[in-house]
């Protein structure tokens, strides 16, 4: 994280901008890599090693977004979303899936996802959503 400025030159607005962070996490490493590829070019992308450490990170990050790459069909993501929402009320949470299961997507939305995005179908949607979250 960005600490207090040592030389006092940084304006507070710069600090805030720098702290905007994209946290990428997932239960599927293949999907996670795909998301990281889609987000090539974005600054401040971090990808913690486990979902547990991701939730710890979302507590520390105050601006930006959380991108969870997942295969919804394997195991519902609902509990994880509820947990992430408790830690972070304001961070947008994007759930990335390659499943086209509408019921699972609706359930994820009900449990706190900001959007559910299908990859590889919607690369541009992901980039658009993340850009908006980083503004």
């Amino acid at each position, binding site marked *: 994280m960005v600490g207090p400025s040592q030389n006092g030159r940084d304006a507070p607005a710069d600090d805030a901008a720098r702290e905007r962070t994209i946290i990428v996490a997932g239960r599927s490493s293949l999907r996670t890599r795909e998301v990281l590829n889609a987000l090539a070019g974005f600054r401040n992308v971090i990808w913690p090693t486990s979902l547990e450490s991701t939730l710890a990170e979302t507590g520390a990050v105050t601006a930006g977004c959380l991108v969870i790459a997942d295969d919804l069909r394997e195991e519902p993501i609902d509990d994880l979303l509820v947990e992430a929402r408790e830690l972070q009320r304001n961070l947008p949470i994007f759930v990335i*899936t390659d499943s086209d299961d509408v019921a699972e997507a*609706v359930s994820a939305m009900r449990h706190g996802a900001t959007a559910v995005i299908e990859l590889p179908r*919607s690369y541009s949607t992901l980039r658009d959503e993340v850009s908006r979250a980083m503004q």
Partner: protein
Amino acid sequence: MKDLPSTVFVVDDDDAVRNSLKLLLKSAGIAAESAASAQEFLSTYDSSQPGCLVLDVRMPGMSGLEMQHELNVRGAIIPVIFISGHGDIPMAVEAMQHGAFDFLQKPFRDQDLLDRVQRALARDAENRTRLRLTDRIRERLSTLSPREREVLQLVTQGKANKMVAGDLGVSQRTVEIHRAHVMQKMEAGSLAELVRMMMTVAQ
């Protein structure tokens, strides 16, 4: 004031779907009405009527999503359950982002729809109770004088009478009198209750 009984409004252009859903809901003891188009529903809809909507996404003329948008513009709080024959994730996500209560793909099991309808009706009842409470508190707030409102604001920030007196440049005795009036007009039994009321209307 007691609410009218809850009604489920089915909006779908398909006669067969409309009739079978109405039958299903009535067999479960739930009052149901229907409309064959978004325009037909909107022209007669009274937002004080509690209930929920079962809304087809694709209809000729105004679509279900457009009708949801129109309801949002009108500030309607009725929960919307979308039903869709050919739903995809982007469509479902859009509906949910705009506040849909649920999104169900056809064909669905009767029980699945009934469960969701029951949950939506419970949510609507909760929302209406909360809104009524908020309205009551706002009504009481509107009876306060400007000075009483200032005192209310300061005491609910946790300030003691002495500090309030200092802030407003009046005597402590005057603050006490204003404060008593505030408690009386707001029908609050304690400072904690007053703070809760202010949090309710702030939400």
